[in-house]
């Protein structure tokens, strides 16, 4: 229908009209601030990160080791049973190469987000993190990696206490 309209009613606006204040503009910066309670499971997980360890929860119902840890098993719908330390090594499940920044500028050194299946946790359980010390063209699914931790005094109980995950030699056999 609109293809038949040759002349649109009203006045077209350009960026100049906005800049020169000829049009009412309202700016509102919402103050939405939160302080989420981490809770039992994530609280412990973050505390262990500060200590340089990864911790998970075991569910005896399905005999899975859940990472990140949770106090309930979503499959069995029951409380999980015990804390289990897992390794800080794992296998790349999938990755991407970010060539574009938030402001759409091109990155010369692309970021490498990856999902890593962590050794000691059940299949499909792991950590969402970044890869480092590797060229984008060398990254592949199935690659073995290990966490590179921040120095103890720099850690703050956050996911960024691990700087990134770097490739390690494949075990033979």
């Amino acid at each position: 229908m609109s293809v038949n309209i040759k002349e649109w009613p009203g006045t077209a606006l350009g960026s100049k009209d906005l800049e020169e204040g000829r049009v009412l503009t309202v700016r509102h910066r919402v103050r939405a601030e939160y302080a989420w309670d981490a809770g039992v499971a994530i609280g412990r997980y973050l505390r262990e990160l500060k200590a340089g360890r990864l911790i998970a929860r075991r569910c005896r119902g399905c005999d899975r080791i859940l990472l990140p840890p949770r106090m309930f098993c979503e499959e069995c719908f029951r409380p999980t049973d015990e804390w289990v330390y897992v390794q800080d090594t794992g296998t790349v499940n999938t990755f991407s190469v970010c060539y574009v920044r938030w402001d759409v500028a091109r990155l010369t050194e692309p970021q490498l987000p990856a999902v890593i299946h962590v050794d000691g946790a059940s299949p499909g359980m792991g950590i969402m993190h970044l890869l480092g010390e590797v060229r984008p063209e060398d990254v592949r699914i199935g690659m073995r990696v290990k966490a590179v931790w921040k120095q103890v005094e720099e850690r703050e109980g956050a996911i960024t206490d691990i700087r990134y995950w770097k490739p390690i030699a494949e075990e033979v056999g």
Partner: protein
Amino acid sequence: MPERVAIVGVGHSDIRSITPGVSYKELMFEAATRAYEDAGVNPRRDVDSFISVSEDFWEGTSIFDEYVPDQLGGALRPVHTVTGDGIQALGCAAMLIRTGRARIVAVEGHSKHSDMRTPYHIQEFAFDPIFNRPLGAHPHYLAGLEMNRYLFETGTTREQCAMVVRKNRSCAISNPRAVYGARLSVEDVLASPPAFYPLTELDIARPADGCFVMVVAAESVAGDLAGEPVWIAGYGWCTETPSLESREWGEAVYARLAAQQAYRMAGITDPFRDLDFAEVDDSFSYKELQHLEALRVCRPGEAADMLEDGVTGPDGDFPVNVSGGSLGVGHLLEATGLHRVYEVVLQLRGQAGSSQLAGVERGLAQSWRNLPTTTGCVIILEKG
């Protein structure tokens, strides 16, 4: 005749002014576990659909729906969110069941109010950006405007509103779920610091954290479950205008129209006679009186007289907010409606402990989505 629908299981988490020890997921798991235990259902096997009520800005995560299934037992199952009050979700559950799409539905609502550092700025974000936000006052002033007009139109007094606070906070003392039980005098309320004239600080319900989960079932399966069914006889909800410039300030029109829908469904013609008690929104003291009038429990301007005569007290002919309401229990964001329903369910089951009312057969729960909304919900519940 469409199939009857019942609430067959109810559960809640700890309700506290703050809950720093647990995450919202852990809060929800606690409430859900209790509700499923009460109903005698296994969510992984028996529950056909899950409904959560939440508002992204209260949570601090957009598309919050996605974070709901695991702790409700709804992983890899139909789950959706109602960005509204819990009573709206109960209505949706009843409709899912009446279409035949589900036989058992779980409904969840929670408040993690203490996770918000700037709750009133988030509330302000719900104001119209061109007309209202530039004026910049704390959003609670809307309640002051409304109370002032309500008192003007009905002749109700600030003292009578203070009596609502006294009644509800006193009732809360015998409710184990209530955070703000207290013995207060009318003078205490009037002498508390002025907040948003005519409101004083004590006229305003304070927030609390907590979660409620309910299991809703079709009549064909309700009899086989463990929980004593309480039947949903009617429900309705309504939204008046968002415009602050032209809304009805004296009367709660949304509650009147929502009640009309629920009454029609439940066959109620005289609410005072046909209902035994009610849990109604009292997030600000005057709201309890304004809402009772909108619900046609009495005529406009008469709610305060009923209160003064003790009719709406715990020993009266029509007890209102015997739980302590939001003033006594704490305001639970979108879970507030589910909390009111929970209290009605316990009363009808005879499980309300020292707050138990004698011989109650049918009760009403009414909610309002708080400032700056004009959305209200009504649900009618009855025994066997």
